Each structure stands twice: as structure tokens, then as C-alpha cells.
């Protein structure tokens, strides 16, 4: 006869606390990708990626053929030729173009990764474990950054590798280290900033629909308002009232991209301190909101 399992002691070795953030992040990502709709969003995001893959292939072929003076039927416009090799604009624009799918995906993921924790008191569970609030924040941020990176920085890095692989030599990688740094820096900036803002919004609103509405407001309504105001005040003459663009967080992130990719555009250089200030305010505000919500969690009631 089978006897019921007795209680057993455990005497394993404990991992460092830093690794516990990864457990939180992994659980968050698992909860998101358990839902089929996120695979659909990911697929949508990858359509653009596959188009860029084809474009990179065509460019590398055209560059090689042009070097041999062989005419190429599917000529890629000249303005695109340097985008992936010299300036990195192509990668910047690719990451920027992923914005729509990324924002929709993050809008839905916010409630699952963060909002539900506050709604169903899972935060009390986390904080009763041997981790602190910062570990919890980092774990959740890592989950959002991981999802955002799947659509932005990782595909961009794959494009970079692809370009080098289809080139004549590996010199592409050596000559374009600054582009690689730009991809990583811009991608990381986008992921961390949007992730932090998402944590703030989702922790405050908890449910999916309100989170989506406010998230949409930040990345759809604010840009429309910013553009409208800029156009309206611009038509009255005088200097371009670019500062209205500071309302649009996604565009502000793009302004910093030029700096990170080493692209020198005079007007964007002037705006950089303002852009960094706005990004800093968004991040600071979001962290404060998240912290405030987390501090209100009563582990023992």
C-alpha cells in the first residue's frame, strides 16, 4: 500500500537576491505569452521586421553589384543605401516604426504584468517574501523591457547582424560599432522609459481598459494635441514652436535617438536637453506613482 508523502526538509543552497528579480520577470512574461493575442501582436511586429530583413538583403546585394558595375533591376533608392551602413538611420527608423505594435502590446500587457498584482493583492505575496520593493520593481520592469525588446532592440540587432553577414567581409561590424552602440542605447532607452511609464500607469489603474485608455492617451492623444498646437502656433509666423512636441513622449524619444546614433542634426541638438528633461520627468513621475502604490500595500492586514 502506498503511504502518503511525509513532509521533507530541504537543505539546498540559496541563490543571491539579484537573481530573484529574474523569477518575477519570467513569471510576468510567461503570463503575457500564455495569451494568444500577444502572439498575434508579436507576429504583426515581425511583419515589419521581415520587410526590413528583405530590404537589408536587397541593399547588401545592390552594394555588392554596384561595386562590380553590374546593373541591378530592383534598385533600392539611393537615400536608403547609407542608412544601414554609415549613419544607422535605418535601424533608428526601424525601431521607431515598431512603435504602434509595441504600444498596443504593452497597453494590454500592463494589466497582466502589473495591474493584476495590485488588483488581486499579489503585491502582498511578493513583499512577504525575502525581496524588497526595489527588487519587485526591477523584476516587473525587466518583464516589460523583455517584451519591448522582442519588438525593438532584438530585431534591430538581428538586422545589424544580417547586414554584416551579407556584406563582403566582417569589416562592417568593426566599422559600424557606433551604430551597434546606437541600437543598444536607443533600444534600451525606449524599453526602459516605456516600461517605467507602463508600471506607473498600470499600478495606478490596475484594470486593462482604463490602462489602455490612458496609455493610448499618452501615445496617441498627446502627439495629436502636440502636433495640432505646433501647427496652429506655427501658422502665426515666427519661430517653429517645436516645444509643443515635448508633449509627445514617443517623438521626444526619437529626438534623443539622433544623439545616440551619432547623427548630428542642428535643430535636434538644441532640443536634446529638453528631451532628456521630459524623459526624466516621465520616468520620475512613473516611479513615484509605482512606489506610492507599492507602499500602500498591506502585507499583513
Amino acid at each position: 500500500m502506498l503511504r502518503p508523502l511525509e513532509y521533507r526538509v530541504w537543505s539546498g543552497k540559496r541563490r543571491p537576491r539579484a537573481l530573484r528579480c529574474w523569477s518575477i520577470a519570467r513569471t510576468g512574461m510567461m503570463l503575457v505569452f500564455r495569451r494568444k493575442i500577444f502572439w498575434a501582436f508579436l507576429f504583426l511586429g515581425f511583419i515589419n521586421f521581415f520587410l526590413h530583413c528583405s530590404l537589408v538583403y536587397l541593399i547588401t546585394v545592390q552594394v555588392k553589384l554596384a561595386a562590380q558595375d553590374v546593373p541591378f533591376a530592383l534598385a533600392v533608392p539611393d537615400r536608403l543605401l547609407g542608412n544601414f551602413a554609415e549613419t544607422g538611420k535605418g535601424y533608428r527608423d526601424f525601431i521607431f516604426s515598431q512603435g504602434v505594435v509595441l504600444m498596443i502590446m504593452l497597453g494590454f500587457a500592463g494589466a497582466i504584468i502589473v495591474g493584476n498584482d495590485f488588483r488581486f493583492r499579489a503585491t502582498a505575496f511578493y513583499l512577504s517574501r525575502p525581496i524588497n520593493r526595489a527588487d519587485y520593481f526591477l523584476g516587473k520592469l525587466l518583464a516589460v523591457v523583455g517584451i519591448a525588446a522582442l519588438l525593438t532592440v532584438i530585431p534591430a540587432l538581428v538586422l545589424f547582424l544580417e547586414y554584416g553577414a551579407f556584406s563582403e567581409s566582417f569589416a562592417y561590424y568593426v566599422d559600424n560599432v557606433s551604430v551597434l552602440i546606437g541600437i543598444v542605447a536607443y533600444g534600451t532607452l525606449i524599453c526602459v522609459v516605456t516600461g517605467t511609464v507602463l508600471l506607473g500607469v498600470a499600478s495606478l489603474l490596475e484594470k486593462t481598459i482604463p490602462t489602455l485608455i490612458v496609455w493610448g492617451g499618452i501615445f496617441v492623444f498627446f502627439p495629436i494635441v502636440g502636433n495640432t498646437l505646433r501647427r496652429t502656433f506655427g501658422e502665426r509666423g515666427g519661430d517653429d514652436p517645436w516645444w509643443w512636441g515635448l508633449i509627445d513622449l514617443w517623438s521626444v524619444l526619437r529626438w534623443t535617438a539622433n544623439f545616440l546614433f551619432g547623427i548630428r542634426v542642428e535643430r535636434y541638438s538644441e532640443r536634446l536637453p529638453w528631451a532628456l528633461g521630459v524623459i526624466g520627468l516621465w520616468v520620475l513621475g512613473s516611479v513615484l506613482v509605482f512606489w506610492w502604490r507599492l507602499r500602500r500595500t498591506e502585507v499583513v492586514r
Partner: protein
Amino acid sequence: MTANGASRDIVRLAGLSVHYGSFCAFRATDLVVPHGAIGLLGPNGAGKSTLIKVLLGLLRPRDGSGTVLGLAIREHSSEIRARVGYMAENDSFVPGLTAVQFVSLAGELAGMTPRDALRRAHEVLTYLDLEEARYRRVEEFSTGMKQRFKLAQALVHDPELLILDEPTNGLDPGGRRTMLDLIRSLHRDFGKSVILATHLLEDVDRVCDHLVLLDSGAVVAHGRIDELREHWKDRFRLRLDGDPTSFIDALGGAGGEVISREASPGSHVELVVRLPEGRRCRDVIELVASLGDRAAVLRSIGPDRERLGDLFRRIVVDRRAPLAGDSTGPSGDDGGRSRVATA
């Protein structure tokens, strides 16, 4: 605990106080809790939750110092939680996770490797009779399953100390008995220290050997339950079958008195009597025998032991009586189902 293991005190608090603004929520001049099963009792607002927060290192005391399992509360809050298993009163689940995923996550957060945590999650859920429900989502569980599941996530990292907040909340009598048996087994058979915070005095009576009584944010009594109980040499508890009137009259004539009278199931009557000085148990038996056919049949007799409800009332409620009835104590006379009443 000291390095040589000489002391097995799980909690030591010295001059510790916790304030919310200017309000003092908890103070303990000197509290030493030894290894064992400890009942944490007190009316609402007595400071139980605050004390648990302090023990888990979630709340920094303003004054004083304290240790849990030998670790200083102020400096080692995270290490304390790694060695303590906490079962919350309220549900706090990550929605969407299955039981085994959730318990495994709890293990990983306590520092176990994912592989160890998963294996341990299976073991603990099986031990707690949730084997069949391991792959079900936690939010679909019944109340009894949820309580056992909460115990599983507190146990997964094999803690030395379990802090259980109302573990029998919402359970039917059978589920309650099972839960209490589990807790008692964890203490007696596997050497876990248990702090049981509850309103149910019978739960404490069944599981605990020590008691910490709180009232108005202060520790009003603590120690072994047997030592805290009043022992009366002149009081006896009798169980009679039939009409006890003639016995009560005869007892009065002999200088004794009936302190309480309860009707037991059937035709039994339970009496608590006080005998005159110098009289013993044998004298009661002789008194019943002398009444002959007029007397009720004496079914049992033994020394009267103070019940936990009476102990609570004596220490907490009577202490608060001058405060114009802002609290009522548990009756202690309702078969042990007494609850510490809301202040």
C-alpha cells in the same frame, strides 16, 4: 539562536515600540518567545498585525531592538523572511498561475533554484493533499484548498518558523480539524516553530503550548499556557446524570458552592464547584453517595482547569473593564468555539 544552539528562542524583543506618526501601535518592554507553538491572541486593534509586520521585518520599530531566529530585525529583514514562512489571512494570489507554478515561484523568491523550487512545490502540495489540484489555477480553488495552498507556499522553502495568520478562516469543521492537525504535526513531528495568530481560542488550545496575549498595542501576558492558567486546589468539575438539585443543596449545607452550571448533551449536567477549605475530591464522592437514590449519578470528577476563554477574560477583558465596556471577551463556555471579540 546562538551559534552553539544553546538558546532556542525564536523571538526576542527588548524595549521595542512601533509608532504610526505619534500613535504608538505596539510596544513590548521585554518579550522572549521560545521555540514551540505560540498562540498570538488579542482583540481587534490589539497590535497582532503590527507585531507580525515587525517579526517579518516589514515595519521598522522606532525604539528598542529585537531578533527573530537570532537575526536582528532592523538589519536583516530580508534574511528573516528567507527563514520564516508567512501564511496571510487574506488571499493574495498571482492570477493566472497554477498551484505548482505559484508555489514554485514562492520557492524561487526565497532563494531556491528554479529546479529545486519546482520539485519542492510538487512535494509540498502532495504533502498537503493538493496533489490532484497541482495544475489547476489557484483562483478556482475552494476555501479549504486555498487555505492549504497558502500553507504550501509558506512551507516551500522549509522555514524554521511559520507565522500563520488565521489559518482556519472560512473552513468547515472537518477542514479546520485537518488544518490544525497539519500545523500540530509540523510543530511536533518536524520541529517547526509556529506562531498562530487567530481569534479562535480553541485553535490555540489544540495546537499551542505558549501564548502571547496582546491588548491595546501591548503584550499583557506571555508564557506557557499551563503556567498562565490559574490552578485551583478547591475547585472541581463534575459531570452528573439526572437532577442535581439535591446534590447542590447538600453541597451548600456542607459549606461548598456551585460556581457554574452547564447542561451537557443528553441528561448530563456539568458543574464547577468550590469546596470548603481542607475538603478534597473524595469528599464530593462521599457526599453524592450519602444522598442515595435522591442524588444524580456522578459520571466524572476532576480538578477544574481554567479554560482559555476564562484566561483571556481574566487577563484582557477584566483589565479593560474600567474603560467602560469597549470590549467584550470570549465566553469560554461555548464548547471552545469562543472568538476574541471585536473592540
